[in-house]
């Protein structure tokens, strides 16, 4: 398979999950594990351009696929607009769900970079965050959407309120 544009290979037991292959064989530890039932979304990566949960796939199922992880999102010093949005709008606290959130948000915005707040919220239902109440995650994604549309993001709430 290719991961973040690099061809990778490895021999694994059939039972090796894609997330374990990414973390342990490739050492890309930005993809996290928060549950074992496919509910938390911390392991979200892109496979062939769609967002998937890498805990819910065997590594062997991804043979030949193109995988992108959080480590592939920034281009050197240039952050992906979603990464920038999370930083600018305080879209993260402990950071554990953040890579999955960013991958999911990037996928959503690739489908539609002018999503409504409601669509963003429902698009994130497979990604659990226990710190932020999602409030600033939504703001971060709206910031990124504006950037991707070439527009100036709305000012932060703390810039407009006392």
């Amino acid at each position, binding site marked *: 398979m290719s991961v973040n544009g690099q061809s990778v290979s490895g021999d694994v*037991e*059939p*039972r090796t*999950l894609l997330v*374990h292959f990414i973390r342990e064989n490739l050492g890309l530890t930005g993809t996290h*594990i928060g549950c*074992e*039932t*496919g509910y938390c*979304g911390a392991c*979200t990566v892109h496979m062939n351009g*769609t*967002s*998937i*949960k890498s*805990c*819910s*796939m*065997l590594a*062997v*199922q991804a*043979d*030949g696929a193109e995988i992108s992880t959080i480590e592939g999102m920034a281009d050197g010093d240039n952050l992906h607009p979603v990464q920038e949005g999370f930083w600018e709008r305080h879209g993260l606290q402990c950071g554990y769900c953040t890579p999955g959130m960013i991958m*999911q948000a990037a*996928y*959503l915005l690739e489908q539609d970079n002018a999503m409504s707040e409601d669509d963003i919220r429902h*698009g994130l*239902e*497979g*990604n659990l965050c226990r710190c932020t109440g999602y409030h600033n995650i939504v703001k971060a994604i709206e910031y990124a959407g504006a950037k991707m549309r070439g527009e100036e993001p709305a000012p932060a709430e703390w810039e407009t309120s006392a």
Partner: protein
Amino acid sequence: MYPRPFEYIKAASLDDALAALNDNEGAKVLAGGMSLLQMMKLRLFSPPMVIDIGGIDGLGEINDNGDHISIGALATHNQVATSPLIQEHAEALAQAASWTGDVQVRNRGTCCGVMAHADTAADQTAAAIAVGATMVVRSAGGSREVAAHDFFVDALTSALEPNEILAELRIPKAGGASSYDKLGRRGGHSDYAVAGAAAWVSKSNGSIGDARIAVTGVGTKATLAAGSVEAILGSDGGADAIAAAADRATEGITVLEDLYGSEDYKAHLAKVFVRRALEQAIAKA
């Protein structure tokens, strides 16, 4: 969270998969894996062999075949939810698919996988019954067709024999209109159905000429609500007729309590959603 060890075969064709399935007792077919892998990770289920059909070409399509629409074994929930063909001819199924799991699950999980898994609280199973779907079942020995309302046998049990694969789901282009509505376990439309109902109706001469209604979440399987169908057939589809049909939502169905509701509550919800699904379908028909 590590599954027990198993043997893995990546099938190159459906025939290969069927042969492997025939030759290996206890082998399980892996498509999207949204249900199978979760059970394997929790070690609730540990098949000795997994046959991966995910790489087989041509199974992931939704096609217009003239008098019916064909949903391939690998077509995902997202494909079903967003397919203009499904939205036009089987809107209930598109709605049910759009409320299945979450975005990532809908990107990987398959409609046929949901049918084969036969969860008691799946959404698309009820919709498949309502839209009159036919399951095209393949085995090494040949092929057979099973009507959706006969396909779901019990909790997590479909009509599939151990050596069979659900290769395709066919939906007749029967006109009329369909709708699905539910209460999800997390509330609203989110997560598996506490209870849900799908309805398809076709009008003729101002009355309900044909109908199928199915409920999910309330018993062991998605089930045709025969009493409701009987009540709505031939009626004017007005509020009274809908109420009468809703009242019979669980007729002949053994309603079971679970973590998400008592028998009374589930029976009540079945009526609510039969009513809502019928209202929506009749309004569109």
